[in-house]
Each structure stands twice: as C-alpha cells, then as structure tokens.
C-alpha cells in the first residue's frame, strides 16, 4: 500500500469521510477497466465499480493493510462482477431480461468494425475502434472464459488465487485459459484484426 493510500485510509477511519474521494479518484480507472472487461458493458461496469467503492468504504474498518488497497478493491470488484454475471446467466436461463439490461444493451450496440486489412492494426484502428473490437471479441467468450483471461492476463493473478475465488481446480482453470486464449484469438481474427507485421493469424 502506498504511503498516500495508508494516510488517507487512516483519515477515513478517523471519521474524515471526504478523504475517501482521493481513493476513488486514484483507483477508479483501473477498477472500472477490469470490471468492464469482465462484464463487457459500460453502464453495468459503471454501476458495479460504484458499488465496489461503496462496499469498500463500508468494510474499510476491517481492512488491515496487509494487502495493497488497490488489490483489495479489485478483489471486491471481481466478486461484484461475478455476482452480476451469475445473476445474468440465471436470468437468461429463465428467459427474463430486465428492462435495465435491455436499455444498456441498446446503448452499447456497437458499430461494425471496419474489417479492411491494413499493414499494422495499430495504424488503422483508433482507440475507440480498438475498444469496440476488444469488447466484441471478449463478448463472444463465455463468461467463465472471459473471467479467467481477464484475471490471469490483464489483472495478473496466479491460477492459485483465481482458484480461491472461483472454487475451480487449477487444472480446470488452465484448460479454461487455454480455450479462452484460443477463442479470443479466433474472434479477433474473425473481426478483422491482424498481427502487427501483416502475417495472417
């Protein structure tokens, strides 16, 4: 935990609620990014990231500072994203889609990505197009596959730590990660993305 985080957490614990604003400002970008990659929807990511900060504030009295505050926060956020995905899966199974999700889905309807080939994808994709492409590619992965690839490769967790979260065996997670990487690569290829020097992927 940084000295700044430690000092601010101490202040919040002492009753200075407004000091929590600093922690939100500092960590919101990373937290939102991870949740967004897990749930694939900007509005839902926004709500879950807000919920995460509120839960962290409520639980700050139990935070002993053994881990970094950011790590602890991400853990709460990942749990929130998993809960959301689980609820969503259950709703889908029941063929019920909430009005909020319909609205969010309409808002997040994406423009089709320009699939024309280029020598270097970074040269013909602007940041928004890259976001759209990634969102579409991740969106084609089953939630469990998306989760393992986000936690393993984007957040940097070990399989042991992911196993603690999901309750799956490490072997299962490795198989899932293998499948997830393969699916992501295929989806990116199908959406027109090519590796940097123009080789086919």
């Amino acid at each position, binding site marked *: 935990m940084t000295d700044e985080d430690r000092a601010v957490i101490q202040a919040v614990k002492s009753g200075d609620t407004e000091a929590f604003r600093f922690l939100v400002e500092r960590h919101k970008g990373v937290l939102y990014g991870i949740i967004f990659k897990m749930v694939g929807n900007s509005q839902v990511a926004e709500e879950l990231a807000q919920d995460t900060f509120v839960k962290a504030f409520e639980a700050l009295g139990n935070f002993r500072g053994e881990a970094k505050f950011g790590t602890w926060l991400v853990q709460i956020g990942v749990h929130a994203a998993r809960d959301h995905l689980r609820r969503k899966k259950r709703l889908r199974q029941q063929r019920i889609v909430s009005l909020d999700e319909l609205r969010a889905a309409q808002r997040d309807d994406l423009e089709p990505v320009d699939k024309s080939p280029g020598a270097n994808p970074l040269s013909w994709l602007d940041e928004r197009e890259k976001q759209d492409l990634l969102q579409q590619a991740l969106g084609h992965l089953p939630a469990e596959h998306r989760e393992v690839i986000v936690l393993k490769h984007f957040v940097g967790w070990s399989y042991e730590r992911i196993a603690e979260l999901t309750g799956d065996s490490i072997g299962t997670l490795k198989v899932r990660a293998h499948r997830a990487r393969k699916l992501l690569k295929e989806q*990116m290829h199908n959406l027109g993305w090519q590796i940097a020097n123009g080789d086919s992927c």
Partner: protein
Amino acid sequence: MEHFIDRYLDGELTEEEAEAFLVAVRENPDLEAELRAYEETLAFAADTNPPGPSPDFTDQVMNRIASMNRQPAPRLHYLSHLRSLFGPTRAARLAWAAVLVLVFGLGYLTSRLGTGGELGYPDRTRGSQTVSDAGSIERTQAVASLQSENFRIFRLVYAPQKSEVSGVAIAGTFNGWNPELTPMHQEGNVWTALLILPPDTYEYMIVENGDRWITDPLALQTRDDGFGRKNAVLDLTL
C-alpha cells in the same frame, strides 16, 4: 507444442525450458506465427483500455456514501435487544452488568494513566508534537509531504494550549468557512485533520469549541481577513 505455448504464456516454464522452447520456435515458422498471434492478441487486449468511468463517477460515489451516513440508525427495541444479548434471567443480566462496570472502570483508569491525567505523568513525546520544557508551545504544524497528480495531502496537527477544549475544527476557503465540514480528530493531546485538496492557495482558521477562532500561530504565511484578524495561508501549489 500447444502445451508448451500454454505454459510459456502462463510464465510457467523454467529458464532452461523457455530457452529450449524459443529455439524450437525460431526453427519452426508455423509455431512462431502461432505464438506471436497469441502474444499480440493478449498484448492488444491488455493494452486496450475502455473509455473510462463517467466524469461524475467520483461525485456519485461520494453522494452515495454521504446519503448512507445521513440515514438515521434503525430504531431498536432496546430492552428486548439487551435481554437477548445478556441472558434470559435477572441474575444473568446482573452478572453481565457487573462485568461491564469492571471493564469500563479499568479502561477509564488505564486511559487516565496513558494520557497524562492526574493519575499519571504528562506524555511529552507523542507523535510529531513538540513540547517545550516550559510547556508554552504545544502545537506544531506538520506535514505537507505527499502529493499526487490531482491532489495535495496536508496533515494539520494542533495541540490546544487550554485543557478545556472539547472540539476543534478547521474553517477555510476550501469548505466555505464552515467548521462543521472539517472536524479535527483527537489523538491523545493533539488534534489532527488530513486535508486533501486540489493544488491551490487556501486561507483557514482553527476553530475551538465551535466558536473560538484562532489564527494558526505557526502558519508560514498569514493574510489580513479585513476584520482585524489574520487568516493562515496554506500554499499547496508546489
């Protein structure tokens, strides 16, 4: 070879295994293309960031927290609650009451000894407080040190010269001169507050017991307030 690609991507190959694997990759164009496709896909995905939370994200979180704090505590049926806590019989409840009196009594005595009360000795070395031998200056202003891109963090420490102070707060240009918004917190003989503010120059006063406005005597700068007093100036622009 897929097994090795997975272990390589997971960072699980030993140094020797990784070296041998990369030699094999260089000798096999198909394998090389396959590995590069995986690596670049993951790098692309990791480096591509979503647009970010909404501009008022922080305000929304803080509003939710503020509204949470304002909610009244739920009403309790105290008697039934106490009964359920301390036992069903009168004898059990009396025993619990005796234990509580003992615990609080010991706690009170301990706190008196620890804070230099009449049963103990003055604590002259707590934290960053400076205490002269004559005891004339019992406050210090500290420690403006931590910075981030958008904020400056400043810890104000204040030790009242009078003992009958029950509350200390800060009023200044950063909170509309409203001392209720920035209470200081007591830590032994001193009162502290952590100010987290955007880089700027601020004026402030220390407020004792809600109505005694004091110029911070150790402020590096002061400025006339137009009413015959001086405000402390806090320069957080550096």
